[in-house]
């Protein structure tokens, strides 16, 4: 049963691929198709960050362990969509013209934090297997706390690239703040116990 549910969740998580493919073939990407594709995957990366961060609060709220089963998959989807997002920018937007890209990474803070967030995702993806959990023991948890920093970098990336915080970036900022506040609360209550 649990095996099937994981497969179902996996195919649901591919929704952003289906929807953008449909828009491409339907020719309904609008005035700025490249930007639309880049932003599509950027936004879905943020959504998957939020979903990943929701799993342990949901565990506490519902008193059920079922959520944790999906956390690894959701986390890997963060890396998957972040990677597509970055390559859309590098390949489709800048046609692998490295000079302006490198210039952006160095000089533009929104690109810088976005790139940094992607770099930080690499160790998380690389140590996501059961084997690595056993191998790293206590350190595994420490490494995977990087997701909090990644979430902050991700939302900063969105705020800094937008002309105004109203309303898209603001909504994600609030959601991420709430999800991170859960951590502070949990950690406090767990130390009391």
């Amino acid at each position, binding site marked *: 049963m649990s095996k099937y549910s994981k497969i179902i969740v996996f195919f649901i998580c591919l929704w952003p691929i289906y929807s953008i493919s449909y828009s491409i073939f339907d020719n309904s*990407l609008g005035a700025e*198709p490249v930007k639309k594709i880049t932003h599509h995957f950027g936004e879905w990366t943020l959504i998957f960050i939020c979903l990943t961060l929701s799993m342990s609060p949901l565990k506490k709220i519902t008193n059920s362990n079922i959520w944790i089963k999906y956390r690894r998959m959701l986390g890997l989807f963060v890396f998957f969509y972040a990677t597509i997002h970055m390559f859309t920018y590098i390949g489709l*937007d800048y046609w692998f013209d490295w000079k302006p890209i490198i210039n952006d990474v160095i*000089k533009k803070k929104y690109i810088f934090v976005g790139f940094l967030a992607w770099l930080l995702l690499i160790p998380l993806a690389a140590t996501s297997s059961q084997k690595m959990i056993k191998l790293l023991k206590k350190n595994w948890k420490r490494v995977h706390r990087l997701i909090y920093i990644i979430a902050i970098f991700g939302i900063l990336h969105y705020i800094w690239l937008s*002309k*105004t915080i109203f309303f898209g970036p603001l909504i994600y900022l609030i959601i991420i703040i709430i999800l991170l506040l859960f951590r502070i609360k949990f950690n406090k209550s767990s130390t009391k116990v």
Partner: protein
Amino acid sequence: MKKVKSSEITPERIYKNRRKFVQNLGLAAGSMFIGQNFINLAQASSNSIEQEITEYRYITTYNNYYEFGTKKSDPVENSQNFKTKPWNITIDGEVEKPLKLSVDELKNMFPIEERIYKLRCVEGWSMVIPWLGFPLYKLLDKVSPTSKGKFVKFISVLDPEQMPGQRYPILDWPYKEGLRIDEAMHPLTILVTGLYGKELPNQNGSPLRLIVPWKYGFKSAKAIVNIKLVDKMPTSSWMKASPNEYGFYSNVNPRVDHPRWSQASERVIGGGIISPRIPTTMFNGYGDEVSHLYKNMDLKKYF
């Protein structure tokens, strides 16, 4: 120091020639011309260059008009019931003969011309738009600015009932913009009443907006109700929102980046999924006409 590629020069030549070409055409001829959806440019040399006019559907569905919302699709969705009649405009301040008149009166005051301009948004994209309107200097001549009229301030309408974006502190409402008097008097600076041979759609700033083609798009205020001649440099809504990012001049300049993103290149709207970026040109390609306005000015400082 830097080698200039031919691709970087051509756009300037294109727009200059195109403008001359377009200026020679009357309105009727201009509309027919749009029917072809692109412009043929007879170059002095043998080759002719085609510069495509952006499709009407993109010009009218992809807008920055925060009064109606911050998404690009918000203006077209939220402005359809916006009332632009009756609409009065006041031209006052440091002038000898202040004016208060309706848009219809204003439209009948001057012959309507067609101007095909490139519009470069500060966000890094551009369109080519066939506007209808008249040069601002003609209106300013009517009101006779005094010697104290050194700047022109444009104030857009304040109507939160009809403009949902104005219910939030996105910008300092009503929208305010400004030009130096010589910029305002420049023959390329126009007041716009239509596009594509038709009335100006609400989402594009109906019934009256400004267009200053060598500046970033946000300088061109929409739904204007008041044009005020003033003696001190006005503070625009964007300058107030973020003074280190949006300056008073805001001339298109590939060498002066927005603090948060590059201005060296731009995406052409309507180019499709595999269209490459194109290099942004100084003064959006109108350098021959306007660079003298900024002689001896440090454009990095006065961005």
